């Protein structure tokens, strides 16, 4: 086990930059998730840690040692691929023991380690089968087994669950989390699925366009997204974004929306008078009521029942707002509904830079 430090790392293909100056310190035993849309550079960064991609600029340190020029085999890390990359011509046992064989592990010790890993993953009865006879979930387990038998310095996961169906994905997610708790090995996990990121991570690294956007605990990113990208990428159903102008009147702050509605904001918002802003509010923070008529009224346009709660699409003068409510009241389409946007739940971003305005 070891810490991983990424210092000023950049990568270009020819003149095309794909990663800009990434700095990241991962502590020993930490589970870090790199999340972002496809093409954001998260997989490239992971493959650079693995040694599968060259480093154009900066340093990568594993356990305090620069590994920039070290071949993958000498980095003592394990990796789970999206395609699982099981060796099709070898049995499950041989797949799992290949790395041990390469290290000249004595055979009694090897069979001991393999059977321990197999029982941990429920693979005992498949050890002599070839990967093609296994289901997707079983292959996924073998890929994990192959990684854990070695006790590597770090686990790298490259979208390991994206080839599984939703049910299995949920189940494997839990198993990965349990496994990490048990083994405590430093892990870097790449995914484009924000639910996986939220549920698995000690810390999330949100990436976009080859640059790190925000690093923090899942709730950090959810509660205090540092910019528009993180705000809209994390969270499902997605955050509502409204355009407006910030007005500062002494200690009072409010926002004039496009519809010329006034929205009171917290007094501690920094900003300057007349600044163009984007206002985000998460659907579960939009408060609705059908009984009392309020100051803000809209019509129910669409209802998406989710079982756990309901997503309401509320049509207002200039836009549609999404609200997530837990009660299962009946919301007939077209009926009037009152809503409010509590000041302390607003996320306010500069419209031009997309950065959060300090509060």
């Amino acid at each position, binding site marked *: 086990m070891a810490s991983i430090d990424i210092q000023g790392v950049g990568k270009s293909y020819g003149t095309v930059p794909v990663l800009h100056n990434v700095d990241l310190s991962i502590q020993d035993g930490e589970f870090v998730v790199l999340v972002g849309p496809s093409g954001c550079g998260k997989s490239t960064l992971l493959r650079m840690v*693995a*040694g599968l991609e060259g480093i154009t600029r900066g340093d990568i340190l594993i356990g305090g040692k620069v590994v920039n020029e070290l*071949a993958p085999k000498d980095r003592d890390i394990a*990796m789970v691929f999206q395609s699982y990359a099981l060796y099709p011509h070898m049995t499950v046992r041989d797949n799992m023991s*290949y*790395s041990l064989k390469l290290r000249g592990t004595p055979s009694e010790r090897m069979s001991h380690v393999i059977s321990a890993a197999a029982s941990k993953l429920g693979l005992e009865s498949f050890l002599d089968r070839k990967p093609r006879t296994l289901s997707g979930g079983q292959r996924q387990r073998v890929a994990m087994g*192959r990684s854990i038998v070695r006790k590597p310095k770090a686990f790298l996961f490259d979208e390991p669950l994206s080839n599984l169906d939703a049910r299995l994905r949920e189940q494997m997610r839990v198993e990965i989390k349990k496994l990490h708790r048990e083994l405590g090995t430093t892990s870097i996990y790449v995914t484009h699925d924000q639910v996986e990121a939220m549920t698995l991570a000690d810390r999330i690294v949100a990436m976009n366009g080859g640059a790190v956007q925000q690093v923090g605990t899942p709730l950090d990113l959810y509660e205090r997204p540092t910019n528009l990208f993180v705000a809209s990428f994390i969270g499902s159903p997605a955050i509502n974004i409204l355009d407006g102008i910030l007005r500062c009147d002494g200690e009072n702050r409010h926002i004039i929306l496009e519809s010329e509605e006034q929205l009171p904001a917290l007094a501690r918002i920094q900003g300057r008078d007349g600044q163009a802003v984007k206002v985000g509010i998460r659907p579960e923070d939009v408060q609705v009521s059908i009984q009392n008529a309020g100051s803000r009224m809209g019509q129910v346009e669409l209802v998406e029942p989710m079982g756990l709660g309901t997503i309401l699409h509320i049509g207002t003068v200039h836009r549609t707002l999404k609200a997530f409510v837990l009660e299962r009241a009946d919301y007939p389409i077209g009926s009037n509904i009152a809503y409010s946007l509590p000041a302390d739940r607003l996320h306010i971003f500069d419209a031009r830079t997309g950065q959060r305005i300090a509060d």
Partner: protein
Amino acid sequence: MTSSARSTPYWFLHYGLLAFYVAFALFPLYWLLKVSITPNDLLYSEGIRLWPSRSSLAHYTFVLAHSDFPLFFKNSLIVSGSTAVTVTLIAALSGYAMSRFDFRGKMWLVGLMLITQMFPLVMLVAPIFKLFSPLGLTNSLTGLVVVYTAFNVPFATFLMQSFFDGIPKDLEEAAMIDGASRFRAFRQIILPLTLPGVAATLGFVFTAAWSELLFALMLVSKADASTFPVGLLSFVSKFSVDFGQMMAAGVLALIPACLFFLLIQRYLVQGLTAGAVKG
């Protein structure tokens, strides 16, 4: 395109056309066989009969017992076999490099390999003879293997590349992370998965080397290093063209090439499906 959707007339046409192709492919081979079992006295008088009134295996007995043909056959087996193995090894390496690495000069290499396909090999006879004779590579099976290997490496490289292109890169990356060097990953993980491709390349090169005549004729003048196509030619010159014996020898010579080819043709299609002739 599902077969069940096709009508009966379609299948008549389908099988009819295929029957035509099979007949076209096999009839010349049948004729070869027919001539080889026709006794000499009937060769011309019953020349155009579909099956002679008497058949005999006399030509085969003669060829096997009283000619140098078994020697030629053995030489051909040695030459074609070693050529096939050497080419496949070398082309596996270069095909792998073409498939997996991006290196400076790659386009030049492709260009070089293409150019080798563009001139009549006749041109090389005199220069190669001059290069080889001081090295003692003329009149030797080794010399032939060297020449055939060089001639077949370019196409075999393209062929092997297309097979490698069909194998996901993840596999050797996984092996490299498991602790293997790239070369070990190539040997232990990638090569075993390319066995159909290896078989196809072996077969392709074997048949090509098996039938080569020009260099076999020009670089070798002694009978004990002659291959069977040269031996066939010797029936034309030495014994006032004994066609029956020549065809018998031809049929015998066809056997290994055809067997080899029948075994590998399926892999040839399979392997090319994966890859590079199109990419």
